[in-house]
């Protein structure tokens, strides 16, 4: 049972990572990043690492996307308003 | 418990933390004085540390977590003579860089000093650590500070490109480093150099050990700018503020090589004993490629800072050759070479900064004769002396180190020629540039790439404008560094001291015993006097560098004529230059290929 769950989560990490990399448009990529982050957090959970889970949640789903989205916003404004 | 080692590391770091809070409040002059005090204190601490390592290895267990029952869970600083000397070199170069930065930088200086102190502390920690993961943390600390320093001139597209390339390639290297740490940890259940070495010793290296070694060394060689992990260096050095360049070229790159030697001799040497020679050959090959590529690219550059950057790559190759010979004599030579090169290269970057300060440009071709017109006599003299010293002229420390490596590698007939190539070509390039800038010789036409003309367009941001006089605080650091290099080179008996230090550096069982049981056992070795012929070789190399510079100044039009012929003589060099495309994706592709090649060669060597 444990092994099956672990295998499933690892496979999903691999698949979602590949999807993120192959999504070329940055905004779409941020959206594709969410399932990757979730699957990575699940992996940390099944690997019994609650501290890492908490860190990955606050970093992967809070700090990181905010920074990337703000940076993308600035890039867009650069273009609109050179 | 000895407090000097952690203080040497944390005085600059705590100094940076305090300054980060003060920097918006206090006046620039106060901040400068504060930084000067912190830097001098750090240098003194490093010197004290060096003094203490003469009769034992200095240990510090963070948090008092000493090893017990053969298990070491604490984090250690483990300082031997070579580690402490490296820390002292960092301190000296940082001091020179700070003095230079007083008059040089105007914009962004509020943050500059904080970053420089963090950078310095990270490097010192890297030099002193005896723990694999602390090595990684210090690697990243100095990397992040260095990326930020490279991006100081944020209005300049080139600066951003250099900083991005630096960060991307070094990040890839750090992933390799950390994956290697993961493999080592999985095998040994330890992060302490000594305990890992003790655990690995005695069993022949299998796949896990070999792959861990390659991953760790790849991460470190990325920092050391060894071909093909070297691409980031020239982009970063060409744009970084001059005081940062002094530290980048003078010691940061060499720290990658120091780390390579450290992890090899403390952790892997026991497991690789029968295959040591073969693995050494792999390192020799990488070093030879680095010498040739760096030297050729150096000679083809016209942007002074970029020229010096490629020269650093070539010299890093020489040091790697010293490590690849896998004996303590060559290691001693490499250590002296690091000091000699660091001081000379620091001085040369300071000189480039002075040229930039006075003329507002760095492009050798467009600067032709400007040095003479501006009557920069002291600068021109220092430039020429530095060029000769870079070529290996006695009695500077770099030439001494080179002759020691030559002696240690007597089995390879091609070795002296390879080392001479590095010295002659890079020294020749510096002398050629001096001849053109200060003598007005040669032509101001040449084959131009974007990087060559880059300087003219953007460099004026670093200083306010072209200045009429060279302030003393700018030229003093260059003079002091050169003088120091001369003193080290003339130091009677230095070679003996360094050979003993190197023999202790490679003595894995004694290192492990000192760390794990506290019983230090320092061996002493008999040393041999350097050959008299070394002086003549050094003079010959310097003469060859002068000749190369003069020929290239005289023959510039010929190169242009070569091009027009049906057979394009410049074509191979054009291919080489095109490979240095300035694009991060290219660099990462080469990084991956390089990792595969390095891994494949090591596979062959270990099998």
């Amino acid at each position, binding site marked *: 049972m444990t092994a099956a769950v672990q295998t499933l989560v690892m496979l999903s990490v691999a698949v979602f990572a590949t999807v993120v990399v192959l999504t070329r448009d940055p905004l779409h990529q941020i959206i594709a990043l969410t399932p990757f982050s979730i699957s990575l957090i699940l992996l940390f959970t099944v690997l019994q690492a609650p*501290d890492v889970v908490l860190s990955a949640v*606050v*970093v992967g789903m*809070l*700090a990181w996307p*905010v*920074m990337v989205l703000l940076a993308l916003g600035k890039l867009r*404004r650069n273009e609109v*308003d*050179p | *418990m000895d407090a000097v080692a952690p203080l040497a590391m*944390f005085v600059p770091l*705590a100094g940076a*933390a*305090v*300054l980060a*809070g003060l920097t918006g*409040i206090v006046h620039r002059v106060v901040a400068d004085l504060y930084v000067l005090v912190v830097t001098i204190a750090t240098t003194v601490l490093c010197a004290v540390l060096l003094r203490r390592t003469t009769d034992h290895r200095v240990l*510090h*267990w*963070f*948090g*008092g977590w000493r090893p017990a029952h053969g*298990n070491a869970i604490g*984090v250690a600083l483990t300082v031997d003579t070579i580690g402490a000397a490296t820390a002292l070199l960092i301190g000296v170069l940082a001091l020179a860089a700070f003095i230079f930065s007083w008059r040089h930088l105007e914009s*962004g200086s509020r*943050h*500059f000093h*904080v*970053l420089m102190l*963090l*950078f310095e502390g*990270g490097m010192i920690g890297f030099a002193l650590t005896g723990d694999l*993961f602390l090595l990684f943390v210090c690697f990243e*600390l100095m990397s*992040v*500070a260095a990326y930020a320093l490279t*991006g*100081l001139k944020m*209005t300049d597209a080139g600066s951003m490109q250099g900083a991005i390339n630096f960060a991307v390639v070094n990040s890839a290297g750090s992933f390799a480093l950390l994956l290697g740490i993961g*493999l080592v*940890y*999985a*095998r*040994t*259940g330890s992060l302490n150099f000594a305990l890992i070495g003790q655990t690995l010793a005695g069993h022949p290296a299998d796949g*896990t050990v*070999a*792959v861990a070694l390659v991953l760790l060394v790849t991460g470190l060689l990325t920092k050391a700018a060894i071909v093909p992990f070297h691409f980031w260096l020239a982009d970063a050095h060409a744009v970084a503020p001059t005081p940062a360049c002094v530290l980048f070229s003078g010691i940061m790159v060499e720290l990658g090589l120091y780390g390579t030697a450290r992890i090899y001799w403390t952790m892997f040497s026991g497991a690789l004993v029968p295959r040591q020679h073969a693995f050494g050959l792999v390192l020799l090959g990488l070093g030879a490629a680095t010498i040739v590529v760096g030297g050729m690219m150096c000679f083809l550059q016209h942007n002074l800072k970029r020229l010096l950057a490629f020269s650093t790559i070539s010299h890093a190759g020489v040091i790697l050759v010293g490590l690849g010979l896998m004996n303590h004599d060559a290691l001693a030579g490499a250590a002296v070479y690091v000091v000699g090169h660091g001081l000379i290269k620091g001085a040369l970057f300071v000189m480039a900064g002075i040229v930039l300060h006075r003329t507002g440009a760095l492009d050798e071709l467009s600067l032709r004769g400007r040095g003479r017109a501006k009557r920069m006599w002291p600068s021109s003299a220092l430039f020429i002396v530095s060029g000769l010293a870079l070529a290996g002229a006695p009695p500077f420390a770099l030439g001494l180190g080179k002759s020691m490596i030559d002696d240690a590698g007597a089995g390879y007939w091609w070795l002296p020629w390879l080392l001479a190539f590095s010295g002659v070509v890079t020294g020749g390039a510096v002398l050629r540039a001096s001849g053109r800038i200060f003598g007005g010789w040669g032509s101001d036409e040449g084959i131009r790439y974007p990087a060559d003309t880059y300087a003219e367009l953007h460099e004026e941001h670093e200083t306010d404008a072209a200045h009429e006089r060279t302030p003393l605080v700018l030229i003093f650091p260059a003079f002091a560094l050169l003088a120091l290099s001369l003193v080290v080179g003339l130091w009677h008996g230095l070679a003996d001291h360094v050979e003993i230090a190197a023999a202790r550096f490679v003595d894995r069982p004694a290192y492990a015993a000192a760390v794990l049981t506290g019983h230090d056992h320092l061996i002493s070795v008999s040393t041999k006097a350097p050959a008299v012929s070394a002086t003549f070789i050094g003079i010959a190399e310097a003469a060859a560098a002068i000749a190369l510079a003069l020929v290239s100044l005289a023959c510039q039009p010929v190169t242009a004529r070569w091009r027009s012929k049906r057979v394009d003589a410049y074509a191979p060099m054009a291919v080489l230059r095109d490979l240095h495309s300035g*694009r991060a994706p*290219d660099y990462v*592709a*080469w990084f*991956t*290929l*390089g*990792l*595969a*090649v390095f891994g*494949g060669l090591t596979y062959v060597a270990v099998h």
Partner: protein
Amino acid sequence: MNARARRGVFLVGAVGVFGYLMWGVAGLNGFGHHTQTALRYANGVVAAASPLRHASNAVTTVVMDVRGVDTAGEELLLLAAIVGMLMVLRKADDEEIVPARLEAPDRVGTGRSRATSVVAVSVAAAVGVLGLYIVAHGQLTPGGGFQGGVVLAAPSILLLIGARHETFERFHYGLAWEIVQAIAVTAFLGVGVAGLIEGRGFLANIVGPGSLGTVYSAGTIALLNVIAGPAVATAVVLAALQIYHQMIEIRRER
């Protein structure tokens, strides 16, 4: 190199690297299995965490005590990154700051009702308290200075970005965030130096271990968590606000 050549170089390398890595992991113990040697570090830490330090979370014991110096390096690294971001995203000579309230006048005093603001502030306060909880219980449950610090930062960022621009300006300009960060990082190192003065080594756990399972357990582990919290929180706030400031308020001079 064109795209095809680059891809070719990469793929050749990638195949080699993959094969090489497989050679490396083949020599490891199977997933989930270990030799006693491989587990000795973990066993050493587990032996130390709860009996010696009265900390029930072994990970925090590693982060803040056994390998506390790594965390000191990490706080300094965060400081370097933030100072670097502030420097790189500063206003250039040929740029001007257009205060956000002039930039987007329609957002000034939007018809946001008092009730909405009260709700926003209470939610933010709740998240803030959660952050404090995570910081304070790091030695007991999953959490600690870093995780709690980021959670602490979240309400500040949301409030400042969502608030009236006058509020944003009042809290963003000025050096308060930077000074708090510097004080926190300095305090962290100060605890380290205190250990040196005691003669027990940098970052030694010099406070008594307290009683297992309470907030006051684990000595300097709890103290360092409480220090790391604001250090991380201010770093995250500074990073987000500086990018936001750059995005909204800085533009090329006309």
